[in-house]
């Protein structure tokens, strides 16, 4: 059982455009190595490793060592904290719009549709 990551940690990890791009490349591949991620990236392998470390701490990627290589893949539930958080607000507004409809009916019974 993995400890749930605070949503702010997930956000901070994804706030950096380079790190977000690294995450997106990992998420878009089945599995990928640091060397593959570095190729054509325009940043050093050391920088990529640092980004992967942050992403790992945020619960967004997991690593699988095999021999001398380390393979990275996206953590399936990594975005769960964001999903829960957004869901809370989307339900909140949806409910409010329903209440607003009722309030408007109350203060303006002679609405334009009748």
């Amino acid at each position, binding site marked *: 059982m993995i400890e*749930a*990551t*605070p*949503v*702010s940690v997930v*956000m901070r990890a*994804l*706030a950096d*455009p*380079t790190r*977000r*791009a*690294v*995450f*997106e*490349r990992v*998420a*878009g591949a089945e599995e990928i190595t640091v060397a593959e991620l570095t190729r*054509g*990236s*325009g*940043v050093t392998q050391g920088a990529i490793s640092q980004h992967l470390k942050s992403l790992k701490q945020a619960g967004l990627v997991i690593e699988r060592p095999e021999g001398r290589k380390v393979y990275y893949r*996206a953590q*399936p*539930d*990594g*975005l*769960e*904290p*964001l*999903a*829960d*958080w*957004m*869901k*809370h*607000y*989307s*339900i909140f*507004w*949806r409910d*409010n*719009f329903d*209440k*607003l*409809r*009722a*309030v*408007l009916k109350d*203060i*303006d019974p002679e*609405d*334009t*549709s*009748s």
Partner: protein
Amino acid sequence: MNNLAAQSAHLADTTSIVIDEVFPHRAEVLWRAITNGDLMGRWMMKPNGFAPEVGNRFTFQTTPAGAWDGTIRCEVLEVAPLERFAFAWRGGDEANVGYGSKLDTVVTFTLKRVQTGTRLRMEHSGFVLPKNDTAYTNMGKGWVKCVETLSTVAGEQA
């Protein structure tokens, strides 16, 4: 700007919750419902210290979570009568997950007269998310659930 960052630069940094509906009432009535403190309290939450003036600071009191006392700190950003009303919505705490997590967002209401009444668009923006379909499709059920719940997700460049 390195290549990776360039690849990611066109991706939106923030995602919004958007609800867009037509109400069978005149814009004047709708405007009053969204910019009058008493009426706001009847459909949203009761604001404390609210005045519909740019720069006004007010709060909403919600359920506390962890180290957060449940106070949402708001500031009126824009008041264009019968057209637009926007305010900052800040609250939460770093340590919370999901509900009560730290956020620095903006709520914007846009009104538009239409034949059947008034169209009201609510955008709650500033939710920082990665924005890439491959990331979402590979992220499993959590994300799918989220997208299903959101009526419209409009990612826009912050």
